[in-house]
């Protein structure tokens, strides 16, 4: 079908070019006239001109034009007798035969289509083309039984099993026989790897329950690079980037493996699967020492949260960047990695050794990175010192965050608000700070600092303690603590906090949110009655809350009110 369309377009272009060439001449070729009429929507006149063109060397283009024109008028069956006679006159012309079959199928003249196919196959003995084209048309028409018969007959011809494997695969996929479909696609792509995207598209539709059968068919020994690449593409499509990488990790480290790894890394990075992307680039580095790959691998490692992995890559002496610009990028990455790895002193030293007098913007960015490194180890004073005078002019929010960690809520409020486009975290902090009139709270500052350091248990406990001190913001802070516990999967600790908010701070804006979160947790652990009670309480108590529609949907999911 695609080939047909391509040829049609080529014919149109060729004809239009021809029209320009003959523009100066008196007689316009009938095909050009027909195409012009067709473009102007004068379909009936175009049909007359296309028919005129059938006798010349533009026969195929004219026939395709007629097929389009008759389809526009809803008279595709008018083409049947014409296609029959042309097909008999040109028994080995693929496009003519395909149009004939397509016309008969659209007219639901199935026995005639079968006869036409057999005539074509007889005219081209031992050729797969008739079988492939007819099977494709039958598949497009969802006539799977007939397609099966045609493919089975075609498979008997020399090279038929492999040559028709893609069509067989489409048939099996349409029947839901995913294991067989995967085996056929494997056969198809092993002989024609350009079919890999088609295979991935076809098998990607399989349900969760069918995927293991596909995995099994594509993983069967011997290891086949195209099959493993297909499996990798599927796993990525199914949202399992780690499994996608595993599928191709064991490919031989040759040029084909290099291409597969590099291609995978690019696609994995595109969906922010940073660590599988890092692993793929690292594997590619073993084949070719390319400093661009090294830098991308290190960057992906940092983005994926593996700062130590990034340092290992950057310290690998076997493949160091040679050009000055790339060495500078590598050093900047090292600063980031050291800061994130909890080694701010080393990061600061590396930054000093870089100099960067000629690039003050990069220097400032890296200063900030190192300052965050000090925050990560809990040393706010060193973070301030690292920022130096730049802190006074900072508009990126660092000043606000540092003030917050020190408990200076008044400064934090102003600096975070003035930090350009605030991050999601900054917005959450600002909304909590808006709930209290307090200007200082070291308890709250230390809770946020614990959160920044990745110590969620200490952070949750800190928010609970801060709630005792900042009573005007208590429900928001208790809710934050509950959120942290819930995010850790510790519902047992979150639940009493939600209960506290609902029972003690029922008039607060956090109460419906706490109740909805509580209900969802109860639903998740199968306590339907408990969840129902919470949802009903929410809807009846806070009827104007923006969360009521969500509560109603959750109630519906429980099986009605």
């Amino acid at each position, binding site marked *: 079908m695609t080939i047909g369309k391509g040829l049609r377009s080529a014919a149109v272009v060729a004809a239009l070019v021809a029209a320009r060439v003959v523009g100066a001449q008196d007689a316009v070729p009938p095909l050009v006239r027909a195409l012009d009429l067709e473009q102007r929507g004068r379909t009936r006149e175009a049909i007359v001109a296309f028919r005129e063109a059938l006798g010349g060397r533009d026969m195929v283009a004219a026939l395709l034009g007629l097929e389009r024109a008759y389809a526009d008028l809803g008279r595709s069956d008018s083409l049947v007798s014409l296609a029959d006679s042309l097909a008999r006159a040109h028994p080995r012309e693929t496009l003519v035969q395909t149009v004939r079959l397509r016309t008969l199928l659209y007219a*639901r003249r199935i026995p005639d289509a079968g006869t036409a196919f057999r005539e074509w196959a007889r005219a081209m003995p031992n050729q797969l083309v008739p079988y492939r084209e007819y099977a494709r048309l039958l598949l497009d028409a*969802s006539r799977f039984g007939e397609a*099966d018969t045609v493919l089975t007959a075609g498979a008997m011809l020399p090279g038929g099993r492999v040559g028709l494997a893609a069509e067989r695969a489409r048939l099996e996929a349409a*029947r839901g026989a995913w294991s067989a479909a995967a085996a056929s696609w494997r056969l198809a792509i092993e002989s024609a790897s350009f079919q890999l995207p088609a295979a991935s598209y076809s098998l990607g539709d399989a349900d969760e329950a069918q995927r293991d059968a596909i995995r099994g068919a594509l993983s069967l020994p011997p290891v086949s690079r195209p099959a493993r690449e297909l499996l990798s593409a599927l796993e990525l499509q199914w949202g399992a980037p780690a499994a996608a990488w595993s599928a191709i990790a064991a490919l031989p480290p040759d040029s084909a493996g290099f291409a597969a790894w590099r291609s995978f890394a690019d696609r994995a990075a595109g969906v922010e699967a940073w660590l599988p992307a890092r692993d793929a680039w690292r594997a590619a580095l073993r084949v070719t020492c390319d400093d661009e790959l090294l830098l991308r691998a290190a960057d992906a490692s940092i983005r994926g949260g593996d700062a130590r992995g990034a340092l290992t890559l950057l310290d690998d002496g076997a493949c160091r960047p040679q050009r000055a610009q790339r060495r500078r990028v590598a050093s900047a990455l090292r600063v980031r990695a050291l800061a994130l790895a909890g080694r701010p002193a080393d990061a600061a030293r590396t930054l000093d050794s870089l100099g960067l007098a000629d690039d003050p913007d990069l220097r400032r960015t890296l200063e900030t990175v190192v300052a965050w490194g000090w925050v990560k180890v809990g040393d706010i004073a060193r973070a301030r010192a690292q920022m130096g005078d730049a802190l006074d002019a900072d508009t990126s929010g660092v000043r606000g965050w540092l003030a917050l960690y020190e408990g200076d809520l008044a400064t934090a409020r102003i600096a975070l608000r003035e930090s350009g486009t605030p991050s999601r975290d900054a917005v959450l902090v600002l909304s909590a700070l808006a709930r209290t009139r307090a200007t200082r709270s070291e308890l709250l500052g230390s809770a946020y600092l614990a959160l920044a350091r990745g110590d969620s248990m200490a952070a949750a406990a800190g928010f609970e303690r801060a709630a005792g001190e900042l009573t005007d913001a208590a429900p928001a802070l208790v809710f934050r603590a509950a959120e942290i516990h819930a995010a850790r999967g510790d519902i047992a600790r979150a639940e009493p906090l939600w209960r506290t908010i609902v029972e003690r701070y029922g008039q607060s804006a956090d109460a419906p949110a706490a109740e909805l979160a509580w209900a969802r947790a109860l639903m998740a652990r199968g306590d339907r009655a408990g969840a129902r009670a919470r949802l009903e309480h929410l*809807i*009846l108590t806070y009827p104007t809350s923006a969360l009521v529609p969500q509560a109603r*949907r959750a109630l*519906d999911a429980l099986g009605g*009110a």
Partner: protein
Amino acid sequence: MRIVVILLLALAARVAAAQQLLVPMDDAQQNHLKAYGLTFRALQTGRKAEWLLNYRGGAFLLPDTPELRRQAALDGISVESVDDGAVASIRSEMSGGNMDAVPLEKAPRIAVYSPPNALPWDDAVTLALKYAGIEYTRIYDDEVEREGLEKYDWIHLHHEDFTGQLNKFAVSYGLATWFQNLRAENEAAAHRLGFASIPALKKDVAEKIRRFVERGGFLFAMCGATETLELAIAGHDVDIANEYSDGTPVDADADRRMDWSRAMAFKEAKLVASPLVSSMSDIDGHQVNVPARRQPLGQFTLFEFAAKFDPVASMLVQNHRNVIPDFYGVTTSFMKKDLKPGVTVLATEDGAPWVKYIHGDYGKGTWTFLGGHDPEDPQHVVGSAPTDLSLHPNSPGYRLILNNVLFPAAKKKPLKT
């Protein structure tokens, strides 16, 4: 002073006792579909209700109880508290126009005829009942054949093919796993229940449904069940099923031998005998699965009836919209030429040779047929995701289905068995 207080308390008590809940069904209603569920549950718990035909989109008047108020709040149903004075004013307004109040007395016992296993399509009535919170019993061939239908007041049929040809899906889905399972399950059921083939079983089920209506039952059918039920009833003594489904070809003179006097809605329809054409007869005007005959969707208009003289038809068309976008189904519409003379047309498409929504009496019972599959999924195809009704709480198309659920509650006569 004490006497004044007592008098005031007594007065307040009387006012409170006189309060009722008006459930508006015009554009003031936030959730039309759940409003039917609220009314149904009020009846189910022994309370009385009134259906105010043509008043504010077909509003309901319910007793003002804490439980109903609570339920309305939970479901997001708009309700208005009205006292005796307001109710009197409403009744006065209604008496002067084409409006009437119909008492609703008893929640009908509902059965939905539907296969036990999920199929790759959904049933609009089941969706509507579930969403509205209306209780129903799922029945299928085993229950109909072994237990009968006497214990139900109202039966719903959807996409079943009562000719036993499985909607001729074999044409397009013959090799699909779900279709093969469907055929195997139906064949097993036929043999289990003592029938030689699926068509023989379905024909017998159709006959039992016909008798259910004849004896006073309420039947509501949609989609392909409307057409095929009638074909099975009229073709009771004729082989109208293709060879692939029962091993014998369609009777050569099947059209001539059809006994349309037994049917409820249609007459003199012509069968489509070919197994390769996804159509059962010429009853359907849209022929969605026959490319050469497929007609485009338009919109249909609900008729207005005299509420005081024709309350049944009025109940069936209560809506806050009277022009509704059409929707396809295996059977989308009904050709006018095939309708029996006594059939009441409830909705039609202007200028088209077909109608959408019809109703009539049969024996002591009544039937209602609505063409199409899913009012909120006009192009529904096999495998489409089920409609999420929480996104369509004001669907006028789904209201038509729920009108049918409540309409039997207005009938006072018990089911004759």
